[in-house]
């Protein structure tokens, strides 16, 4: 299975061959080099995103950015309230010591040795370096659950995604079937109209679309997001182009068997289009899950909010709370990443294995 393949060791990977006798053909070398470069380019930014989501707000703003989340170590001092940051002294008479800072006035810091807290030392601020350790700011994540009804938003997002995807797959597959396997007058016209709607992005028709949905009373309802979302030309176009490649003989044979047209659609066309449907399913899930502009205008009451709306509510007029926003991003990313891992294996099991006999 594809998932186990993902856990192959580098060694196994490198010993995979195209040529015989266990030797790597030069094209294998090129392929693997390309793929490994690709992994770095595609994945490194994502890894960095995940690591950054464990940084504190202050750490996120720091130059130059660090790869791992660091926080300054603090200590408690006997007889004093609060936590005091630790510094390493890099110059002057106390060089090499690790001191806790009490306060800083101008260019001079007042510090003490934690083992001898009574003696106050004066240190030039140019001579100190903060002592840091890797620490995950888990509060970015836990804070999310305290601040809003995470489960509710998660449910709304899931419901919208599942319902819209199922609806879209069914409706689009039916239309694609009609447009690819039937000869009828007006076929080209319908196809052109479908492609025509691709030309105007939703961003542009947001206002008229909003007015239509309002007229239909679907405002502030999850269905107001689900149903308009199912009308995407991309899906019809994609499936239709794939279904064209299915040989007509298969259909003719089934018709000779007196299979009904619906059965031909459901039992032959749909299974044979599995790779394209899997691709479309992944896309549909992703589109609906990440959808932001449309839900933002249709859903105004917080019990209907989706995760994307909650995520973006960290963006104010003048300030953005990056630490929470990143943690939320990672959380919303997880489910679709899992869905993708699951669905991607169907892409490989296409006509190549079932229809080409």
């Amino acid at each position, binding site marked *: 299975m594809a998932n186990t393949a*993902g856990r*192959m060791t580098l060694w196994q990977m490198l010993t*995979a061959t195209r040529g015989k006798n266990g030797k790597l053909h030069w094209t294998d070398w090129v*392929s693997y080099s390309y*793929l490994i470069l*690709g992994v770095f380019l*595609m994945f490194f*930014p*994502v890894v*960095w*995103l995940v690591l950054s989501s464990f940084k504190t707000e202050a750490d996120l703003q720091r130059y*130059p*950015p660090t790869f791992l989340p660091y926080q300054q170590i603090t200590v408690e001092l006997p007889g004093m309230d609060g936590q005091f940051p630790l510094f390493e002294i890099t110059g002057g008479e106390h060089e090499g010591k690790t001191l806790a800072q009490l306060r800083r006035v101008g260019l001079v810091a007042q510090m003490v040795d934690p083992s001898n807290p009574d003696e106050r030392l004066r240190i030039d601020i140019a001579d100190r370096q903060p002592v840091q350790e890797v620490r995950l700011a888990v509060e970015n994540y836990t804070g999310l659950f305290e601040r809003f009804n995470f489960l509710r938003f998660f449910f709304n997002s899931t419901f919208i995604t599942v319902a819209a995807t199922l609806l879209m797959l*069914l*409706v689009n597959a*039916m*239309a694609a079937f009609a447009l690819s396997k*039937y000869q*009828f007058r007006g076929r080209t016209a*319908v196809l052109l109209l479908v492609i025509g*709607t*691709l*030309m*105007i992005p939703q*961003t*542009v028709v947001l*206002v008229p679309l909003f007015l*239509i*949905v309002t007229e239909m009373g679907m405002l502030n309802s999850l269905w107001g997001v689900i149903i*308009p979302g199912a*009308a995407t030309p*991309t899906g019809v*176009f*994609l499936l239709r*182009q794939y279904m064209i490649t299915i040989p007509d003989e*298969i259909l003719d*044979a089934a*018709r000779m*068997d*007196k*299979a*009904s*047209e*619906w*059965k031909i659609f459901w*039992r032959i066309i749909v*299974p*044979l289009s599995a*790779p394209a449907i899997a*691709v479309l399913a*992944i*896309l549909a899930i992703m589109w609906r899950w990440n959808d932001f502009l449309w839900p933002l205008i249709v859903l105004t009451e917080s019990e209907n909010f989706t995760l*994307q709306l909650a995520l973006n509510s960290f963006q104010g007029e003048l300030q953005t709370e990056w630490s929470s926003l990143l943690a939320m*991003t990672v959380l919303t990313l997880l489910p679709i990443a899992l869905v*993708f*891992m699951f669905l*991607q294996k169907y*892409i490989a099991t296409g006509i*190549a294995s079932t*229809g080409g006999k």
Partner: protein
Amino acid sequence: MATDTQTGASAPVSHEPIDASVAARAQTIKVSRDGIALTALSAVMRLIEVPFLALQRMLGINKLAWVFLLPNLLLFGLFAFLPIILNGFYAMTGGDNVLLQDRPYIGAQNFDLLSSCDNFLDPNSCLQDKFWRAVWNTTWFVTLQVGIMVGFSLLTALILNREIRARGFFRSVFFFPVLLSPVVVALIWKWILQREGVLNAFLDWTGIGGYNWLIDADWAFAWTVFLSVWAHMGFYTLILLAGLQAIPRDVYEAATMDRASAWRTFTKITLPLLSPTMLVVLVLALIKGVQTFDEVYAFTGGGPGTATTFIIQYIYEEGFAGAPRLFGLAAAASLMVAGVLVLLTLVQLWINRRNVDG
């Protein structure tokens, strides 16, 4: 004449095994694997079959196509065509009222405003200089982005289609950026490219020396091309991969037997058989390229100056984000863009048809 699966399978059949019963068998295996849900689903499907059968008898097979189209056309009519038609009405009205009935009719004034230029190649000579800057930026952007992206997607899909280890893993990796929301994509790369970002830290370390990428118009433009290729390549790779999977293996086997060179196999077999998929990719890439907006908006905001302001950003700022909200002007601009896109797509379809026929 209810052709149930069982009767269909048990009936003596004379033709080759590619018939309903094979697919049905595959379906049965799936049912046992994926459990109750699919059984329920196929029960629903069998229910739908009843009215369909009646319609089939009434209309005949070819008219039945309209029945298959109906749900989609309904959704499309309401939520895709109607808004576009309304958009057309907005384009012919002025003012900043939201409701169409409150807006004064001004005819083609918006179109005139957009197209009043002394010299179309020089945005500074146009009344709406921002529109024309955006048009030219978009033209350059799409040319570069579509070319580079489709090239790399094809290369990646070909490699992922080979007999390689950990294919599922690599496939996931290349697709992963597609899963990220545009704002996050922009944010990640902004961090990497900023003055004291990761890339400059690396360049300083190698001795090449860093550069303030995003305040240089040409570099900012180059990086937006890179960013958008990075973010969308996986999408097209996936579509191409599905297309490659659809090419029957025996065609290749025959080619191997004929000792055709790899390049010849690619140009004479792979590319022609991939052409329906390639058409999808090219049409979608071109359209989506022209419609590039979110990630670039969050990345450079269209800057420096107007160096990376593309056409949808112009429309968005005129009609939605800016003040006053000139819905009419935005709608007119969007129709002009749509017109150009329709033209380009027709050319693509025409070329494709000629290739297929020839």
